[in-house]
């Protein structure tokens, strides 16, 4: 193992996913020399998405080809403060990505904006229901940025991603049959919506009959051939059903690899180094200025990359882990509710209801895309929470991204046979005639739900693992149960043969064994108050102003929508202010506390 220091660059970007690729592109455009470091290997659609080898459920989804290998580094998990956390040894509940493209290569492509109320949720709830409506122990916070401020950056991200969707209003005028709860837009989606698969079509009809407001889900899957503002080309989605967990062989699903990296590589001032695992951010003697990062290569060498600007753009919890390992900001203490790094760690509150249709209806679940049909009638604050006494909501949708037979056959229902003849009969019947309606809900932040460093286990780099303290709380359990109960009318209208409602069960703790979602949020959140946020509204560290931390780590609480659209918009928002303000200033804070 050798120590080596490289020549300094203007900026180092940690992570080659969406956030890192957007930041690197913006900084290269601004003329900075940029090194982007990715701990995983090189990945490309041409190689990792090549048909037909990539159409392999065992390799892709079952053996987690594009995901982080926990043998290298993982997290520990516990439910309560007084419990010993144990290592997350096998991937299951959540699946962080690894390699160039990051989670942006294996994501499905569901591409939402954020609801305006979600971005200022504490203010909104206080204004509508009063401050006492907020439960004790809930660290409900605002983002410090509004929808109106972010709108141009949501628009920018959709154009880069080639997003397909149907608007409701543009510049205040109704233009289509999109989501009537959605905020106003400055422009339409760059592409029209994907066609409804059969099950989404059934849901659209049934939801309409039940009195709800179905709309086509916005998807970063190109419904037609598309060239984005960087000149990157996308092919049309052919509904192959290999969205989640795979590189899209059709070049139809947006990824950093398809939509940004080809343009980024054209910049002479850009360097991408893969297999470079960043160990920590280096600070000067004052602890108020970063001087670069140190990373480990595959030979075990420790390499210092000096830089004037450090962008942490790794996956949500890796960003928090790096801040804790580097001493950037004050670690959160749940007992005193003080400190900011690790605070407001949240997840997403998802349960999946299975509907079994009559034997005459073949649901063809293997057909899929990131599109689908959703209703927002119970998302965010689109309904009166006053009599309900909880905060948050959940869209309901059919987002059939292709069900393959291993996953289909492994899915089980309480009380149903799990093997043998009876199980085989049931598995085939379910695969051919069932489909899933997802309730993808918000998750509020709580005082005793947080991230810190584990006292016992270390990774292969000899560093303490990140520890997650997480459990479901009464507010969120009741929210989920309320929203899922609203499916009754939809299920009746569907003419279903059978239904298995899946709801959060009171007293049943968070379980790492079942896949739920990779939408982990918070832990280094943005905001206006340095006592409750690690980052200011531009994603700049309050404590070390030449460090910006970009990703879902910045969300003060988890929203009902998938996070990537907001991550991308926040990246463009942050980059815009680095380019227009920070680079022109003295390198100090963009906000004075």
């Amino acid at each position: 193992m050798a120590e080596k220091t490289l020549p300094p660059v203007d900026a180092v970007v940690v992570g080659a996913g969406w956030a890192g690729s957007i930041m690197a592109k913006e900084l290269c455009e601004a003329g900075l020399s940029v090194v982007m470091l990715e701990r995983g290997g090189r990945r490309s659609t041409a190689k990792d998405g090549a048909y037909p080898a990539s159409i392999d459920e065992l390799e892709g989804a079952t053996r987690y080809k594009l995901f982080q290998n926990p043998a290298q580094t993982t997290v520990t998990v516990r439910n309560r403060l007084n419990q010993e956390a144990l290592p997350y040894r096998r991937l299951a509940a959540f699946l962080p990505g690894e390699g160039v493209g990051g989670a942006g290569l294996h994501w499905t492509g569901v591409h939402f904006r954020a609801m305006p109320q979600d971005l200022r949720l504490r203010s909104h709830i206080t204004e509508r229901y009063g401050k006492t409506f907020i439960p004790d122990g809930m660290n409900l916070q605002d983002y410090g940025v509004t929808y109106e401020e972010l709108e141009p950056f949501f628009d920018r991200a959709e154009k880069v991603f080639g997003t397909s969707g149907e608007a409701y209003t543009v510049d205040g005028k109704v233009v289509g049959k999109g989501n009537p709860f959605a905020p106003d837009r400055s422009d339409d989606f760059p592409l029209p919506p994907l066609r409804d698969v059969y099950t989404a079509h059934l849901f659209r009809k049934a939801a309409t009959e039940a009195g709800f407001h179905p709309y086509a889900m916005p998807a970063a899957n190109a419904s037609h051939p598309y060239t984005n503002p960087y000149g990157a080309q996308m092919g049309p989605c052919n509904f192959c059903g290999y969205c989640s967990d795979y590189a899209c062989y059709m070049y139809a699903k947006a990824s950093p690899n398809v939509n940004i990296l080809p343009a980024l590589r054209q910049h002479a001032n850009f360097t991408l180094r893969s297999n470079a695992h960043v160990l920590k951010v280096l600070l000067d003697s004052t602890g108020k200025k970063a001087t670069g990062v140190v990373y480990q290569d595959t030979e075990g060498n420790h390499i210092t990359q000096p830089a004037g600007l450090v962008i942490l753009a790794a996956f949500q919890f890796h960003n928090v882990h790096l801040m804790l390992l580097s001493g950037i900001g004050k670690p959160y203490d749940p007992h005193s509710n003080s400190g900011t790094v690790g605070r407001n760690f949240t997840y997403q509150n998802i349960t999946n209801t299975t509907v079994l249709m009559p034997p005459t209806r073949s649901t063809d679940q293997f057909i899929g895309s990131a599109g689908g049909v959703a209703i927002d009638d119970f998302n965010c604050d689109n309904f009166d929470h006053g009599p309900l006494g909880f905060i948050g909501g959940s869209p309901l949708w059919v987002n059939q991204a292709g069900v393959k037979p291993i996953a289909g056959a492994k899915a089980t229902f309480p009380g149903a046979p799990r093997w043998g003849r009876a199980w085989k009969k049931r598995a085939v019947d379910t695969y051919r005639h069932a489909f899933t309606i997802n309730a993808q809900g918000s998750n509020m932040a709580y005082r005793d739900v947080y991230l810190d460093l584990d006292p016992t286990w270390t990774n292969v780099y000899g560093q303490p693992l990140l520890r997650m303290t997480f459990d479901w709380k009464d507010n969120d359990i009741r929210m989920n149960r309320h929203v899922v109960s609203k499916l009754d009318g939809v299920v009746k209208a569907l003419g279903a043969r059978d239904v298995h409602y899946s709801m959060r069960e009171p007293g049943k703790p968070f379980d790492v064994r079942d896949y739920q979602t990779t939408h982990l949020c918070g832990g280094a959140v943005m905001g206006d108050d340095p006592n409750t946020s690690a980052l200011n509204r531009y994603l700049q560290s309050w404590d070390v102003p030449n460090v910006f931390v970009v990703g879902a780590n910045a969300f003060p609480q988890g929203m009902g929508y998938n996070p990537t659209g907001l991550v991308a918009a926040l990246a463009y928002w942050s980059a815009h202010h680095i380019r227009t303000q920070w680079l022109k200033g003295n390198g100090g804070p963009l906000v004075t506390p």
Partner: protein
Amino acid sequence: MAHDAAIAPLPSSAFTPKRRRVVQGLGTSMAALSLGGLATQTAEAASSEQSPAATAHHQEAGTSTRFFTAAEFAFLTAACERLFPEDDMGPGATMLGVPDFIEGQMNTPWGRGEKWFMSGPHRTGPDNLGYQLPYSPRQIYRIGIAGTQAWVRQQHNAPFESLPPTTQDAILTALEHNATQFDALPASAFFEQLRSDTIEGAFADPTHGGNRHMGGWKMMGFPGARADYMDWVDRYETPYPYGPVSISGETG
């Protein structure tokens, strides 16, 4: 077919689990019975990753297996067939090549535990915090098969694969419900591995050794690697008409 679960003593290796712990664990679950040489032999089996003798035996028998001994493979074949039996729906695990698939998986990074966080200390906790055992899939099979066969022999004086299907089903049900434990390995953890891998072997692309002639896919109605439904997305009342195709180009 193999004849005896209490296979000939095999060279032991340095890897965990420690023999002493295995004997203790089996002793606990078989307290009422005379252990004699059985547990020792089981422990030997459990502490051996690879058996050159067994490999030679398999090669003679014309199979390509390398990890499982002939006796282990006989158990595996019988157990997989009960989990995924041949019936009027379609072929069973044996015809689909599921045991061969599992054999193949043992020789991958996953089978060797290289895709799981295996660093100690290994502590126990509530089920919802997930897998905490020190065992790779290979070790789960080695310990689980030896332990199950020893347990079965106490009750039936015969190896699992020689018993009638109803008895085999009762034994698998007992494993599923965690009726015993093999060293630190709960019977249910072994059962879940077996069930999960059987399903994978029945439905993974045939390139991995199972799902022979796409028999699993035909049964499920899955078109395999066709992966192009541009013209079928909105033909709502028309079930997709084509049979499967595999990554290698085989059609069915």
